[in-house]
């Protein structure tokens, strides 16, 4: 098994609805792996299974050989899996800095005693964290000017960046991004694609990406997996996917429209 993250025959259903029906796939270390498919295909469900928000009824999900399906959700970040959400799930009444600091929660040690006393070990830890966040994350994502703003007052595009920042503060091995460019204009989308590439190349973080913007997906992905009605219908490099008959059919059913959409 040479995959870093492998998904084997995962079944997930809600009552009579089969959300995932025997999906098997795998992500290699250091690649950008995209999952695409029409609405309701089960893309987010798959991420939720990896995160352990959902427990698949059958099948296994393994990170570097370790099965995740029996762990509780809050144990997952400790193994090196971070994620962002389709609808921004930030802590809206807190500042940008605090949100990003929260991402580093698992790497900090202070508890109710050292935290309440603050001076001493806790302050050192906080200052090191602040320095790390400023130098690595805020600088990379170009959000210096909003670091002290309260999150709910920020425009959507910036909130998405902050959420990415929070995920980066977790110092993950694998980053799951659920539609990071949705609802953004062209410039913001390009920024986001640039950040993803930077993170992937400079930090060496494996990226699992769900995205509807085919321009982004085809440009930056190493491999693409296509889901439709909970079943994997194709997997391969972007060039193969672009010309795959089944994918074209699943996507719109009409060849000419699909071709224009898949570029």
């Amino acid at each position, binding site marked *: 098994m040479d995959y870093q993250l492998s998904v084997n025959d995962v079944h997930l259903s809600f009552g009579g609805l089969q959300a995932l029906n025997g999906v098997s796939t795998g992500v290699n270390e250091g690649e950008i792996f995209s999952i695409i498919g029409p609405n309701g295909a089960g893309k987010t469900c798959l991420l939720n299974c990896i995160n352990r928000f959902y427990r698949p009824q059958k099948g296994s999900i393994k990170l570097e050989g370790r099965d995740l399906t029996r762990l509780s959700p809050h144990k997952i970040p400790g193994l090196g899996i971070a994620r962002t959400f389709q609808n921004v799930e930030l802590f809206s009444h*807190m500042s940008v800095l605090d949100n990003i600091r929260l*991402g580093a929660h698992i790497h900090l040690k202070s508890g109710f005693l050292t935290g*309440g006393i603050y001076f001493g070990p806790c302050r050192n830890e906080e200052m090191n964290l602040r320095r790390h966040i400023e130098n690595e994350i805020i600088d990379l994502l170009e959000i210096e000017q909003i670091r002290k703003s309260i999150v709910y007052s920020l425009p959507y595009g910036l909130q998405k960046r902050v959420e990415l920042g929070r995920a980066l503060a977790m110092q993950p091995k694998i980053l799951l991004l659920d539609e990071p460019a949705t609802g953004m204009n062209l410039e913001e989308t390009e920024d986001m694609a640039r950040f993803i590439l930077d993170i992937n190349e400079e930090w060496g973080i494996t990226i699992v990406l769900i995205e509807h913007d085919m321009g982004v997906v085809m440009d930056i992905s190493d491999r693409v997996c296509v889901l439709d009605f909970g079943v994997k219908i194709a997997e391969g490099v972007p060039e193969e996917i672009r010309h795959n008959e089944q994918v074209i059919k699943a996507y719109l059913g009409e060849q000419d429209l699909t071709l224009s959409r898949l570029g």
Partner: protein
Amino acid sequence: MRCGDFKETYVKDEEIFQSLFVKFWLGVLFVFLIIFPFVANQYLLYIANMIGFAVIGAVGLNLLTGFTGQISLGHAAFIGIGGYTSAILVTRLGFSFWLSIPFAGLVAAAAGLVIGIPSLRVKGLYLCIATLAAQFIFEFIFVHWESLTNGITGINVPPPAIAGFEFNTEKRFYWITLVVVILAVIYARNLVRSRMGRAFMAIRDRDLSAEIIGINLFRYKLSAFAISSFYAGVVGALWISYLKVITPEHFPLLLSIEYLAMIIVGGLGSVLGAIFGGIFMTLVPEILSFLAGIVKSILPGREAIFEPLKNVIFGLLIILFLIFEPRGLAEIWNRVKSFFRLWPFSY
């Protein structure tokens, strides 16, 4: 003219009191608090002690309700547990009062842990009802476990003492209250700017994302309950040794609701707000009584109208606050501060 605060180190940037101006006024406040007992009369010192107890309790409840988002209607029960623990340890087991304070806190915290367990499954109003149950259960225990609590007769408690010096007057007790208030406020303020406090706020704002960044909801919700109840227990211990007697009537549901009102009026999720709320809820009824007294001397024979009117006005004040200032007194404070910071160019 100052147009901004520029910090050169992260340590400076993370300070609670950012400018020299603020530190100066903090010093003034401190000096005032030291001088106050020497100039104030018995009545003012009584109010100061009451404000102190209210502030400690409100800061504790705000950690749970304002910061962690877990509504609790059982705060009075935890205060009662702290009070009874202290009273029983001092009168039956011969503990010194000072040693009984941390024990009161710990026993209350243990009770808080148990009462907090439902918070893992139920949220919001449902949790509110679960904690309401705690309130009634403990009130019932205080009344009916007579061998331990003496039932409705209560327990008489000696005043605290150090080497024969008894803290038996308003003025003497003021020093104890002051020290505990300062410690309680510093601890809470530090906690909310470190890892644990941030985790509390994360749970309040969005518990799902709190979980995906690795926060153990079980552990942190219970921690919030324990810390908040610890504060309540300490208040209980202080309060009963101040009153020198403890009975079940001291801890009714109304007291829990008053504490909730304090943090709502003061500002949820703000240590400063809890302080303001504690002051407001203690001071305003006293001021209204004072005004009622004046009205009484001007219009004798109309007490029957003005006495109840006092409560009406107090209620009205709270309602007006909720409507016009839903984020509490702390928010007004922030606005005033930023007005003076930006004046005269408020853009």
